[in-house]
């Protein structure tokens, strides 16, 4: 397992080239390539903003969520990274079956590339967020911004762990992908993205806190949107520690299934 990990490290140049390739292929294939990546989050942004500010403004009563579009963006962008990475990881090994069967290279590179490509897209999408921050002339606290890399790192670790686990398991259980696809909808609504934690009834807080993504979203929202100091950092750090464990377990499972991959994809 450690030898394989070292091998992944040796292939880092390949990983970065593959990420660059994915990005280039996406943005070169179509005129609006860059736009398409963010079309879905922007569409969601438009819909939810319209619904909750025009159609039923009452839903936001009591929460300090102005401007709502900016609040939404803080959650939707990292969610998009998480969702696309996890869903794509479910198919990435089967789609790259040709490589696994015909070329000798570590298969975990494929889900890693998927997650890192998502990270790169997320980084680009922060430009949109920056534009929104500038438009609404939001004050940005440098001290809080320092947390942003930490939050991203925790999300990266968590997403990587989940993606590695799912990518190897979907090779054996093809319907896992459909299951994950449906769970994603549930997960989206079970995470404070379009609503804030303070809006959720008190008795559901314990339940919401069991959701790892809650801690991430709360962290993003506190740092980028809410005024006042970032107080939820213990939850974030706990999630970070749990994510490291998840990643280790996921890599172990992947490593165990490695030899069956070339035969099953």
């Amino acid at each position: 397992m450690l030898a394989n990990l070292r091998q992944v490290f040796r292939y880092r140049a390949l990983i970065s080239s593959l990420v660059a390739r994915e990005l280039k292929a996406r943005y070169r294939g179509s005129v609006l390539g860059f736009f398409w990546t963010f079309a879905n989050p922007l569409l969601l942004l438009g819909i939810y903003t319209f619904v909750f500010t025009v159609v039923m403004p009452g839903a936001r009563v009591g929460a300090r969520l102005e401007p709502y579009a900016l609040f939404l963006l803080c959650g939707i962008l990292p969610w998009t990274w998480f969702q696309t990475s996890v869903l794509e990881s479910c198919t990435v090994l089967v789609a790259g079956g040709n490589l696994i069967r015909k070329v000798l290279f570590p298969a975990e590179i494929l889900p890693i590339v998927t997650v890192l490509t998502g990270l790169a897209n997320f980084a680009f999408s922060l430009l949109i967020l920056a534009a929104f921050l500038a438009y609404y002339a939001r004050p940005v606290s440098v001290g809080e911004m320092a947390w942003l890399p930490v939050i991203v790192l925790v999300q990266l670790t968590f997403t990587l762990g989940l993606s590695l686990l799912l990518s190897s398991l979907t090779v054996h259980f093809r319907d896992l992908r459909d299951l994950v696809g449906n769970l994603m909808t549930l997960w989206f609504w079970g995470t404070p993205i379009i609503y804030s934690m303070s809006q959720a009834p008190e008795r559901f807080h314990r339940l919401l806190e069991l959701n790892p993504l809650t801690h991430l979203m709360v962290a993003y929202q506190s740092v980028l949107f809410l005024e006042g100091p970032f107080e939820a950092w213990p939850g974030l750090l706990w999630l970070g520690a749990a994510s490291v464990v998840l990643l280790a377990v996921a890599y172990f499972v992947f490593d165990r299934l490695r030899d069956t991959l070339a035969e099953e994809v």
Partner: protein
Amino acid sequence: MHAVEVRDVRKIYRRYGRRKSFGTLKSALLSGGVLRNLRPDSTFLALDGVSVDVVAGRTVGIIGRNGSGKSSLLKLIAGIGKPTSGTVHVSGRVSALIELGAGFHPEISGRENVFINGMMLGLSKAEIGRRFDDIVAFAELGDFIDEPVKTYSSGMYMRLGFAVAINVDPDVLLVDEVLAVGDEAFTHKCLEKFAEFRRRGKTIVLVTHTLDLVTRLCDEALWLDGGRVRAHGDPKRVVDAYLLEVAGAENQPTAGPPPQAVEPGSNGAGRWGSKDAEIEQVELLRPDGQPSHVFESGQPMRIRVRVRAPRPLHDFVFGIGIFTADGVCCFGTNTDIEGGVPRELSGAGEFTVDIDRLDLVAGAYKLDVAVHRQDGVPYDYHRLLYSFRVASPVKDTGIYRPRHTWTFGGGIAISQPPPGGQS
């Protein structure tokens, strides 16, 4: 030194049978027990106790029917997949030409694909940069290298894939039938590249159905049958044994006795075939009609062969081949190549081949004599069984000595012109 050591390797593929198509997490959960579903329905033994050593610098051809385990063995040597039991050891860098251009991304340029493909095959960016021009030159892509790969013709795609894989500069090159897909020019280029590899002392393992390639290119052949090694040794001998069996399976009534197991090693000399026709005697005659083993360079030689067919045959070809002592083919021909149409061979017969001028340099030579079917299935193959010496007062080198003369002009003065072709 062995470049490849395969020891007692078994490879079992698991088949999930019918459940595979419904083999999902849902059914695994419903039937109670995810782990049970991971257990296969049946297993398929692809390789059953295969042991092979390949000496560094040798070219080995693996032949056998479809499903005999050739590609499985090659993949194990390449490190794609692990043997169920046994060990595979390869020394040096391996490059596997299993599918050309596997991993090319259609949307990005050939240039970027070369870098990514090269890195997948284990090169560093700097190494690829150094070889980049060679790769593009070999692939004959020119300016197309900066176009997206999806715009390439299939020939360009294959050439580029081959060029990258070959420029990994492996110590051991594994090739799986990639030559079957190219056109004449591409195949020729690949073969030239293989020849260059051989000259540089690299090891090549080749899986192919083109038996002709095995006899022409390989130092030894390995015949796999049902996951086991049937024969390993001299390529001509192994290929013929294989052909004989394939013919036997196709045409049971006229099948000869099964081929004897072929021993690897020695110098490859031997005799095999179905014996539907037999070579009874081979004589080498000097111009005066006397049998001999020593011939003057540039003088005539006659090969006289007596054959006998117990039952009349209508499909037969006579062939001869002259080899140097270390096995390089100097000349080979047969009645089929030269346009002879067989009518009948029954009972005893005799044929002679007259060589007007034996234009070979001095040395020891060996002779193949064969009678076989038009598709190559041997009736009686005498491999390197006859030897003769060519004597010459001139100690020139090489194999072929064309008739030649030296002429000098201008300020050159050589008192005694060296003897020409006619010594």
